[in-house]
């Protein structure tokens, strides 16, 4: 049963991926990328990674789609047909993909109990997390307590990325306002 769902999800992922490449209507592409994220979230649920699935559904299918739609209002809704045939990018993608697939041959099998990831600190976390932190969800215990430094680093990354995007997006506005030719077309809200 799980196998059938796996195959169905992966086939749909492939179909959506090919459709995203083929389509020129960017609105449809944005919608399909949201669907792609939702299918990925379903795949993560099947892999028992509920927290990751949650994040994928919220960020990938939710916020990214809205932000891409926001971009779409600033640009045209149809992709231009490229003038050159993309041979070099195609070769690069095929070679990189081939190397990555070759790399997976050395990975431990899915769910292998002897995989390095399951032998290092994971058994200790699983055995001690509830007893040491009192949090029934081990994922939260690892994220917030055992790996607190890493999570602090991640939040700092989000902080830095947010500030960076903010500077980039509002920077052009400052330049435009300094330009004496164009009047200030964006008055501040009254609030």
């Amino acid at each position: 049963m799980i196998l059938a769902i796996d195959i169905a999800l992966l086939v749909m992922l492939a179909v959506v991926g090919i459709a995203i490449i083929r389509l020129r209507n960017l609105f449809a592409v944005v919608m399909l990328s949201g669907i792609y994220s939702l299918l990925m979230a379903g795949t993560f649920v099947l892999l028992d990674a509920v927290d990751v699935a949650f994040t994928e559904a919220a960020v990938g299918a939710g916020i990214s789609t809205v932000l891409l739609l926001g971009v779409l209002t600033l640009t045209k809704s149809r992709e231009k047909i490229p003038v050159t045939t993309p041979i070099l990018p195609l070769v690069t993608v095929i070679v990189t993909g081939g190397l990555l697939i070759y790399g997976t041959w050395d990975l431990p099998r899915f769910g292998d109990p002897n995989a390095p990831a399951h032998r290092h600190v994971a058994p200790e976390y699983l055995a001690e997390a509830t007893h040491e932190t009192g949090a029934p969800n081990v994922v939260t215990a690892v994220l917030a307590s055992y790996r607190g430094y890493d999570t602090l680093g991640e939040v700092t990354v989000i902080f830095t990325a947010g500030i960076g995007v903010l500077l980039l997006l509002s920077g052009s506005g400052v330049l435009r306002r300094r330009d004496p030719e164009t009047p200030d077309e964006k008055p501040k809200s009254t609030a």
Partner: protein
Amino acid sequence: MKHHLIPRVVAKLTIPGILLFALYVQFHGDYGPGGGFQAGVIFGAGFILYGLIFGLQNLRRVAPPAVTTAFIAIGVLVFAGVGIVSQILGGNYLDYDVLAADPHAGQHIGILVVELGVGITVAAVMITIFVTFAGRER
């Protein structure tokens, strides 16, 4: 979107639920799937839906850009502040055991506050990016 009745009514019905669900995900992260990252994104999505339906001007009135920008930093400071507090109380940086008399209670408080910091930063970043993006004119 301002003149479409059905999206307006549906948004009015769903936005409180979305925000409430975000708070549930935020503070229930110890017990089930979820936590600061997911809760922050859902909370931000509630505000973004409001902005999409009722217009950017109204969203700016509810969440002024100066306030959301400040909250980007406040979240990180809350997280880092927990580490400072645990150091002052005699533990290592981000060692939650010392936050309360009982290590379990200390861990509980630590995880809760730290996740709150994560949620604040993520939600503020999402809302701010959306407002700056949507505020650009062609």
